[in-house]
């Protein structure tokens, strides 16, 4: 399940909804990305995310489908926000549920790595001086995403 929204979301409520009423799920892993007050050593005072409506949903759906093909998942959820966000607010949530602990961990890790390099979102930060700047891609994110390509089923 994927959702792209401007509104803030409640991590706990989303996780609870995914497993509510189910007694067949043994392991749930979540990743939450939050707006930090610093980045690369500089103070961040404001934060905004632009995205490409339409393509965002397509890419997230493709990534989720790939995760379901690679791991034994009973449920999964990706929520990604766009627009203005306050410091400390959640930006993204990935939840994976599986019978197997390692499947849930690996799938969540994979979803984040691929999302980081494929989903069309762009972060803009405001610094202490009030200047806004577009965040640059990180080599560590590129490298992290490549880990999953060696055993790609594509």
């Amino acid at each position: 399940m994927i959702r792209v929204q401007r509104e803030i979301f409640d991590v706990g409520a989303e996780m609870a909804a995914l497993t509510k009423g189910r007694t067949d799920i043994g392991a749930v892993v979540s990743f939450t990305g939050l707006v930090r007050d610093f980045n690369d050593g500089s103070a961040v005072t404001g934060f905004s995310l632009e995205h490409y409506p339409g393509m965002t949903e397509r890419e997230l759906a493709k990534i989720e489908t790939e995760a379901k093909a690679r791991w034994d998942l009973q449920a999964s959820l990706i929520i990604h926000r766009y627009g203005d966000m306050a410091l400390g607010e959640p930006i993204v949530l990935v939840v994976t549920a599986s019978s197997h602990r390692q499947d849930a961990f690996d799938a969540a890790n994979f979803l984040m790595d691929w999302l980081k390099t494929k989903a069309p979102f762009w972060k803009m930060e405001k610094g202490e001086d009030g200047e806004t700047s577009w965040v640059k891609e990180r080599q560590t994110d590129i490298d992290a995403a490549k880990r999953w390509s060696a055993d790609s089923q594509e």
Partner: protein
Amino acid sequence: MKILYFAWLKTKLQMTEETLPWSEERPDTDSLVRWMKSRGPAFAEVFSDLEVVRIAVNQEYIVGNTALNENDEIAFFPPVTGG
């Protein structure tokens, strides 16, 4: 053809989208990019380093030169930084 710009490309070009009439001078993405570079200094700068410009046609990333059609949606944007 509908053209979309995102993030710093949008900021530099001061434009989020535009509609281009179909032209046989721009039958594919390579020729479209060449034409873009010729539009003026801001465009020349934005398209000077294609290493930092991603292209999507009809909301799909493209690999290599890609043929274009009249009703295509072409998007130019930097490497993504979400998550």
